């Protein structure tokens, strides 16, 4: 069985699955339950000067029968005292010496940062995570994303922290920024040992059309909330990759954002995360989800012949490149498997109205019972000449593996935009004619 253990900038854990700093990591009780379930690490709910929360804190978007595909909250950091939090961290660490226990911190002055860092180390935490990410509430008080949105401030605060750091320091970044790379580089410059991303994204999930006030509703008002859950995964993956591919960052990454299962986790790891953190999926289904995360990831690694999860780390980073390096002479086209096609014609109308009018409806003669169960009902047929290989139809087709994209040999050697521009400049070729 593949070795799942990781070492993130000196923080060791038996598997790459950590509970993110959030309500699931609020108390010792939850921390014990998480470790019992098998989580490799817990990042404690962010500790700071105790705050007061409002009642009514979450909201979500649902898609069809899938609940909570996107989740938002207006909660602040821990509402318990630092004393309580550090005491419980100490107890948990004693009970679970082999797991990673990271204290998440948020405060303001240099003295306060020094104080919290010392107390974290004293409590036995394996590392700290600096929360520069909360996009709501705390940022109005100059903390959270107010810090994370300003690379200079990131660098300054990290360097304060590093003055006294005896345990590894992770900087948690906010995605509410034009370029995550600049924030990540600043963390590195300040001396951080690792970064974690993403924190939540500024959001309003919905407007109640009766009251004209969004949820979460607080006595006639609402506020911008932090968005997370499955819907944010693509944004998080993109940012993780940007950091992983940037030579100016170059420190380990703890990937976060919309991870619900081992597949999501494996994708984060393949894009350069050493380990991952999970919040929303736990808030939805509880700590038990880690069982399949471990099971599924090991099976996957075994199947791939990888002895350790670290072999997966960064495997996909190099496949993502600038657009201008892509091969302009590559061609793929849509192809329909008529044995499984059900005749919903969704591919047809998508291409007709939303793409390139490359699908025709033609008589179904000779094609078995015919899609849609109506003998003689027209069936969709790809017009390869018009198909630009955009993938739209294969995305809308509701039948698994029915409408697939297949490669077509163009007989032309690969040519990127860069090369195309060079050849044009050298007069080696005529411009590719514009699409009719």
């Amino acid at each position, binding site marked *: 069985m593949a070795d799942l253990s990781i070492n993130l900038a000196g923080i060791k854990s038996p598997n790459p699955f950590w509970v993110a700093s959030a309500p699931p990591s609020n108390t010792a009780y939850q921390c014990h339950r998480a470790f019992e379930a098998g989580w490799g690490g817990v990042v404690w709910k962010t500790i700071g000067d105790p705050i007061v929360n409002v009642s009514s804190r979450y909201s979500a978007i649902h898609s*069809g*029968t899938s609940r909570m595909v996107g989740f938002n909250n207006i909660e602040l950091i821990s509402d318990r005292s630092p004393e309580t939090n550090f005491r419980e961290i100490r107890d948990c660490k004693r009970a679970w010496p082999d797991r990673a226990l990271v204290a998440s911190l948020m405060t303001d002055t240099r003295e306060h940062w020094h104080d919290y860092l010392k107390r974290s180390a004293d409590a036995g935490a394996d590392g700290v995570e600096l929360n520069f990410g909360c996009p709501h509430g705390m940022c109005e008080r100059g903390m959270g994303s107010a810090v994370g949105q300003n690379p200079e401030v990131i660098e300054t605060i990290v360097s304060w922290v590093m003055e006294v750091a005896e345990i590894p320091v992770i900087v948690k970044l906010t995605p509410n920024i034009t370029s995550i790379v600049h924030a990540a580089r600043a963390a590195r410059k300040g001396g951080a040992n690792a970064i974690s991303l993403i924190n939540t994204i500024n959001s309003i999930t919905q407007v109640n059309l009766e009251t004209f006030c969004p949820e979460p509703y607080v006595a006639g008002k609402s506020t911008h909330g932090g968005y997370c859950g499955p819907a944010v995964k693509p944004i998080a993956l993109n940012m993780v990759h940007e950091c992983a591919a940037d030579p100016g960052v170059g420190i380990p990454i703890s990937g976060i954002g919309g991870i619900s299962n081992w597949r999501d986790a494996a994708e984060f790891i393949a894009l350069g995360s050493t380990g991952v953190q999970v919040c929303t999926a736990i808030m939805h289904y509880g700590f038990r989800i880690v069982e399949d995360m471990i099971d599924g990831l090991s099976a996957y690694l075994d199947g791939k012949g990888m002895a350790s999860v670290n072999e997966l780390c960064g495997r996909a980073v190099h496949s993502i490149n600038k657009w201008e390096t892509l091969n302009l002479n590559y061609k793929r086209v849509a192809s329909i498997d008529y044995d499984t096609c*059900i*005749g*919903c*014609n*969704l591919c*047809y*109308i998508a291409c*007709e109205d939303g793409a390139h*009018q490359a699908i*025709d*409806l*033609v008589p179904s003669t000779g094609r078995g*019972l015919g*899609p*849609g*169960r*109506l*003998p003689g*009902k*027209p069936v969709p047929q790809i017009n390869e000449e018009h198909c630009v290989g955009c993938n739209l139809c294969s995305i809308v087709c*509701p*039948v698994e593996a029915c409408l697939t994209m297949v490669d077509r040999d163009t007989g032309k050697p690969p040519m990127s935009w860069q090369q195309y521009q060079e050849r044009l400049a050298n007069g080696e070729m005529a411009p590719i004619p514009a699409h009719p």
Partner: protein
Amino acid sequence: MSLTPRLTAEQAKASMAEIEPAYTRQEAQVEADRCLYCFDAPCIMACPTGIDVPAFIKKIATGNMAGAGRVIFEANPLGASCARVCPTSALCEGACVMLDRDQKPIKIGRLQRTATDHILSTKQRVLHAPARASGKRVAVIGAGPAGLGCAAELARLGHAVVVFDKKPKPGGLNTYGIAYYKLTPAVSLGEIKLIEDLGVEFRCGTEVGADVTVKQLEKDVDAIFVAVGLGRTYALKIPGEDLPEVVEALDFIEQIHTKPLHRVPVGARVAVIGCGNTAIDAVTQAKRLGAEHAVIVYRRGAADMPAYPYEYELAKRDGCEFMFNTLPVAVESHKGHVAGLKLARTRVDPEGKVAVIPGSECVVPFDMVIKALGQEPQAGLLKTLFPKMKLTKAGTIARKADGQTSIPHVFCGGDAANGGREVVNAVAEGKKAARAMHRFLGGQPVEGPVQATRMGVRGKPMGSGFDRPVRVPELEAEYRAKEGTPTAATT
């Protein structure tokens, strides 16, 4: 022994309750979300009234319930009853592409009910007559589904319509004949209110031919639509048929719709002769109203029964019994009351002819016999009302595809013309005839319904089932037979 009611009011209410109760809001949402929103969807082609099924389901999914109801009622003014009584597995749901994914088809009927219930319970007006009347008048004979379908469409096209029915309430079999656990008279009448709101005048309790003559009507109106449905049940033609406890299925069912349920008399041992859908309705309702034994007696085998498979299943679930290959020879009596049936076993030869097995006769005790052999066309009535009207050999009205009879200003539709099909066919025929009458009265041709999204798209649309309804399971069976592969059970 004479017949008596057998249940208390509560028991009767419970046992006759709807077999398919309304969806909750969330159930409807979940089901609506399953629909793929097909383009040129086969379910539309399989609906005889051509309801744009994906359009109304999408509206349910977005919470636009009133819009969903409007889409349905505009295509089918009896959308609420059709939602409950249509044999959907042979129609729209039988065509749903989900079946090709080896999944349950979308429950179109129940979703249709959700949307139409919303309209009826919130008393919204979804059908509208044009501001300018055409000045033409039409009389409709028969306020059943065909007459109602025609009247609603005529009113929407601006014509003044007066509907005659000999019964005290409108609706035809929808109000008096459909199994109570599928459709109650209240729903049927609630839906008819929408048609009344269009300005259609109803003269119930008025029998054409008796209370008013066709001549009188013709003086008042520019065209007539005939939708008198079918007549009496075919006779058994066996001794004892005139005993008091030998009743026609429709008379038995009508009592269920006109009396309090706990006042409907039934026997303890009820025999129902025949095995069509009406027979199933009769036997299940007899059982549900307290009969100890409710037994179908059918001269052919189970495979030959005209009833839908799902109806057969329902009757079996209700605890009804079936005597196949059994022919009633005589009704036995005791002191002037039904005491049993003399039955003979039959054999069906390869040509489909039924022969009695000699010496197989026996007597089985029953105290009630319900005749459900199908209904006769009303040739006699039609001949008296319209002496010049051409009838078919079967006694139904001869008509053109658009419903016009041999008398140019007289149109027809529904059971009286098609010999007995479904409610939805009757509505569609009424509607189709209304459009033909509109042209006859000088109006512009009316198209549709067409899927709104279909406009302007290259290639030929299949059109909606209103133009040419398909029954997929039948088409499929036919296709498979032609291809030489065995017919799969699809309903």
